[in-house]
């Protein structure tokens, strides 16, 4: 073919030419692209280096923001993951009960003991059930003895319903026989070391009944509400310790979980419960006037959405932190966009020259977007490094191991990479758009109005940043003042210098008490079943009310002895405390608190004195009314409380000690304990610490809040610093002129700061109402809460202004003291 064309070449010059030209152009174009890319990168890195301060602020802000966001994301994901790992989680429900008495509706921890075992007879939807009851099992092996605070009783279907894999033993049979024990790996190691624990014997409870280890389970993960180390078969209870438990319709306790058959509907099942209860227990219900309702909570919702006290998570906090994470990310992005657009005009000359040299708009736009992506990629890499470094301290801050590593989930890294790319893109688009639109002639002649473009955008973004930061400052102050309020509030009892010793209902309690009372540094002792801040009984009670009727109610019950009220310094409102002089006090006397008196309809505490009561096979008279004291944390209101004496219910010894030499007092008490109650471990706590532990999660919340608020402010200030230094640079000429006109240093600082302060003040007025609204909502969770005083806002506003002022004036000062001649010579 070619041979035919060669001779004719002279006739077709244009074709050949065009062809070669096309080839040339193609290769040339390819070369150009390469050159262009190289050129772009060179310029990108040179720009980063030349403007080190800006680059540093940009990269640092973005890195810190993304790190905070990533950590919060891990935290939120952890909070949302509770009990989600069970393959059957969608079919598992927790049963809860509302108990309606003539006086109130109470919420026991779970349904009556009999409910679980009876489900199978009437309700085909239920595939399996297990009751779970947290206990404090005493376990011994030779000299090794522990009070296992993380021990439970569970029915045999436990391992069928939940996904807690057994390393040894048979999951189907492990919990069938009485006195079967399943241990976690770490618990097994504690008792048996390297020995094979399966089939071995451990002694349980005070009397030391032998129990066989029938299974070893993997240590339970952190994100389950059923976390325990020791499981004792429920049949141990039903066949040995409490024979009638499976038919207890009037006794509420423990938790009950059910597994529904595939395809069955929880709503439909729930509608069958009233008939079910009526069939088994209707007569009794009507007789004692207590009407339970059974409800099903999806397992996945229990941690965050349950309305019961046992739910330990807080959905509100999860939302709050998610929002904070988004805010921090937004602030970091805003910095990025602000600084890039602010600096855009500096690049104008480069754009002009490139355009004169033949660059088209899209090429320029691509270059600028590329540059901002370079920055976001650097930030991404730094984020990975920083998160790895901070993870363990963040775990500590959060109070739990939310994650063991950033790279354990590759999707997380991919997600972060995606976010980084999008941020780079978004932050690059606007400057790219603005810059590439410059008219080259205008730019090169120097007649380019700088700074004014996009200054509205920048101002609104700065306002947004500072509004967020100020809102977070306000939030932090309120969280901390609420915590301060809860700590400083008069609780109605004294909790200092009180030591509580767990004697676990040992029958040697009185001997032990007398020995302790004789220690010289001990001021007073008292036995009881409960102490403030701890658990207590809830008892079916009948008390004579204002109308003379016996009113039925489920009342909180403290078992206390004679000296309890005086040791804890609880004040009397009427009548008298328990007294050794009255023989009837040990069995037939009751003390109420003011809340109970109010519930019964008496207008004054005195009216309740001498009225009749019946409670748990005891009856007698009200002998006194105590003033309300906070026996729960300040999150919950003070409920009606009854106090009675019953010696076999006393498991705790409270000891008021001399504040000097507490340690030797404890040693002396421990010595007595070892001789009197040798088969139990000695454990004690200080009352004040014990009570305050109820605020631990608030404290954690406060700490996290504080940290992230500080971060947000830090990033905002970085941005402000960048903008301020940029704005001063822009106004170098103006500052020079003003100085020549006679402006002093303070005049100039004033001039430069005023502009930004205005923005900070506007942002305060946006932040204050928003923060007020949200913090007011947050405070509603507390029955006793601090007022949001205007001082909080004043303090937050002042703080924001001061921080901003400090940031800006640094730059302004530098500009103000510079020699004006230099600024003006540059023209």
């Amino acid at each position: 073919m070619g041979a035919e064309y060669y001779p004719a070449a002279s006739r077709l010059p244009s074709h050949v030419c065009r062809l070669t030209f096309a080839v040339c152009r193609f290769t040339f174009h390819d070369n150009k692209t390469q050159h262009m890319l190289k050129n772009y990168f060179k310029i990108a890195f040179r720009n980063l280096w030349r403007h080190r301060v800006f680059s540093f602020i940009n990269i640092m802000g973005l890195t810190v923001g993304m790190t905070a966001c990533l950590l919060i994301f891990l935290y939120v994901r952890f909070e949302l993951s509770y009990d989600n790992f069970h393959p059957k989680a969608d079919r598992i429900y927790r049963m809860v009960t509302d108990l309606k008495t003539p006086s109130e509706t109470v919420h026991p921890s779970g349904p009556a003991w009999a409910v679980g075992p009876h489900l199978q007879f009437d309700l085909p939807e239920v595939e399996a059930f297990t009751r779970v009851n947290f206990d404090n099992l005493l376990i011994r092996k030779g000299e090794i003895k522990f009070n296992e605070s993380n021990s439970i009783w569970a029915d045999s279907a436990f391992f069928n319903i939940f996904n807690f894999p057994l390393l040894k033993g048979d999951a189907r049979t492990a919990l069938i026989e009485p006195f079967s024990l399943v241990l976690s790996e770490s618990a097994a190691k504690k008792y048996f070391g390297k020995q094979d624990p399966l089939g071995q014997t451990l002694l349980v409870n005070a009397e030391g009944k032998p129990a066989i280890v029938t299974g070893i389970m993997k240590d339970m993960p952190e994100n389950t509400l059923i976390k325990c180390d020791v499981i004792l078969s429920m049949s141990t209870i039903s066949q040995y310790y409490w024979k009638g438990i499976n038919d207890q319709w009037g006794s509420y306790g423990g938790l009950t979980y059910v597994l529904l058959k595939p395809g069955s509907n929880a709503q439909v099942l729930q509608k069958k419960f009233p008939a079910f209860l009526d069939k088994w227990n209707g007569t009794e219900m009507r007789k004692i006037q207590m009407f339970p309702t059974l409800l099903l909570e999806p397992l996945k919702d229990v941690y965050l959405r349950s309305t019961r006290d046992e739910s330990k998570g807080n959905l509100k906090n999860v939302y709050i932190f998610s929002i904070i994470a988004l805010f921090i990310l937004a602030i970091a992005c805003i910095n990025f966009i602000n600084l890039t657009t602010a600096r855009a005009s500096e690049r104008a000359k480069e754009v002009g020259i490139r355009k004169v040299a033949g660059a088209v708009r899209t090429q320029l736009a691509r270059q600028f977007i590329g540059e901002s992506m370079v920055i976001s990629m650097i930030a991404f890499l730094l984020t990975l490094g920083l998160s790895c470094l901070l993870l363990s301290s963040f775990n500590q801050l959060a109070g739990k191991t939310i994650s063991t590593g950033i790279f354990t989930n590759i999707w997380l890294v991919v997600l972060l990479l995606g976010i980084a790319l999008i941020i780079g893109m978004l932050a690059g688009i606007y400057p790219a758009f603005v810059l590439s639109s410059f008219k080259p002639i205008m730019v090169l002649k120097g007649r380019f109005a700088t700074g004014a473009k996009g200054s509205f955008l920048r101002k609104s973004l700065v306002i947004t940043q500072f509004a967020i930061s100020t809102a977070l400052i306000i939030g932090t102050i309120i969280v901390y003042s609420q915590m301060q309020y809860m700590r400083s509030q008069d609780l109605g009892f004294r909790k200092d210098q009180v030591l509580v010793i767990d004697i676990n209902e040992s029958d040697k309690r009185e001997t032990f008490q007398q020995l302790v009372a004789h220690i010289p540094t001990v001021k007073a002792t008292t036995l009881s079943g409960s102490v403030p801040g701890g658990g207590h009984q809830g008892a079916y009670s009948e008390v004579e009310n204002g109308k003379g009727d016996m009113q039925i109610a489920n009342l909180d019950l403290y078992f206390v002895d004679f000296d309890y009220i005086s040791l804890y310094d609880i004040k009397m409102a009427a009548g008298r405390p328990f007294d050794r002089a009255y023989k009837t006090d040990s069995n037939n006397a009751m003390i109420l608190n003011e809340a109970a008196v109010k519930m019964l309809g008496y207008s004054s505490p005195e009216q309740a004195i001498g009225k009749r009561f019946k409670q748990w096979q005891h009856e007698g008279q009200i002998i006194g009314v105590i003033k309300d004291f906070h026996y729960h944390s300040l999150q919950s209101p003070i409920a009606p409380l009854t106090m009675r004496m019953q010696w076999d219910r006393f498991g705790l010894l409270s000891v008021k000690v001399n504040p000097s030499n507490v340690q030797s007092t404890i040693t002396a008490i421990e010595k007595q304990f070892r001789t009197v109650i040798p088969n139990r471990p000695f454990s004690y706590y200080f009352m004040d610490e014990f009570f305050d532990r109820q605020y631990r999660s608030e404290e954690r919340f406060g700490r996290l809040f504080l940290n992230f608020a500080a971060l947000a402010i830090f990033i905002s200030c970085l941005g402000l610093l960048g903008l301020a230094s940029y704005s001063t640079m822009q106004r170098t000429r103006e500052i020079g002129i003003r100085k020549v006109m006679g402006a002093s240093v303070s005049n100039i600082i004033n001039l430069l700061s005023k502009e930004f302060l205005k923005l900070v003040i506007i942002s305060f007025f946006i932040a204050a109402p928003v923060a007020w609204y949200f913090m007011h909502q947050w405070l509603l969770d507390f029955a006793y809460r601090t007022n949001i005083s205007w001082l909080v806002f004043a303090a937050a506003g002042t703080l924001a202004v001061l921080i901003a002022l400090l940031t800006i004036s640094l730059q302004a000062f530098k500009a103000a003291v510079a020699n004006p001649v230099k600024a003006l010579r540059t023209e």
Partner: protein
Amino acid sequence: MIELKHISKWYQVGGKPTFILKDINLTIKEGEFVSIMGPSGSGKSTLLHILGMLDDANEGEYHFMDQPVHSLKEKQRSQIYKQHVGFVFQAYHLIDELTVYENIETPLIYQNIKTNERKAMVADMIDRFNIVGKKDLFPTQLSGGQQQLVGIARALIAKPKLLLADEPTGNLNSKQGEEIMDLFKQLNKEGVTIIQVTHSEKNAGYGSHIINLLDGRIEKTN
């Protein structure tokens, strides 16, 4: 009014001092109109900056109205400067973000003059320069001659005794330049001492004295 004794100014370049001004001795009496001439780099602007107290000499004495400027503290110096000196630039150096009115008003703000008084002074000045119609315009909306007029008005607003001008007509066409020089002459007659830096023989001719600078030294005065 002004007395310079042995004024020298130098920069260190590679360890060696490079002189910009060397041993300048100069006396200027009140009411004079002095032009400083010389080729580029002869030190004209630096001399003007030192006279205007915007820059310090490395050596020598500077007496302004019998005050030893070289030994005064920054604060006192700026006090003298604010009261007695006005500056006019070749590139006008107006603040783009402020209107003509506000530009002229600026020096008064830094002298803590009350608003009412300020208003009256600026109004007088605007009236005198015939720019009433332009007082709300921004510098970029004016021609070069008009901008320089504003620059001069601003320099004069605080009623200085000394007006320093750094090539005030350098960016203007000849007609505009003439107008400005006529204005200077007029001001000089009214008693303002003027020192200008210029390249133009013709402009220099407006003054009573000419100082010729070459390589940082005074070549001749006439």
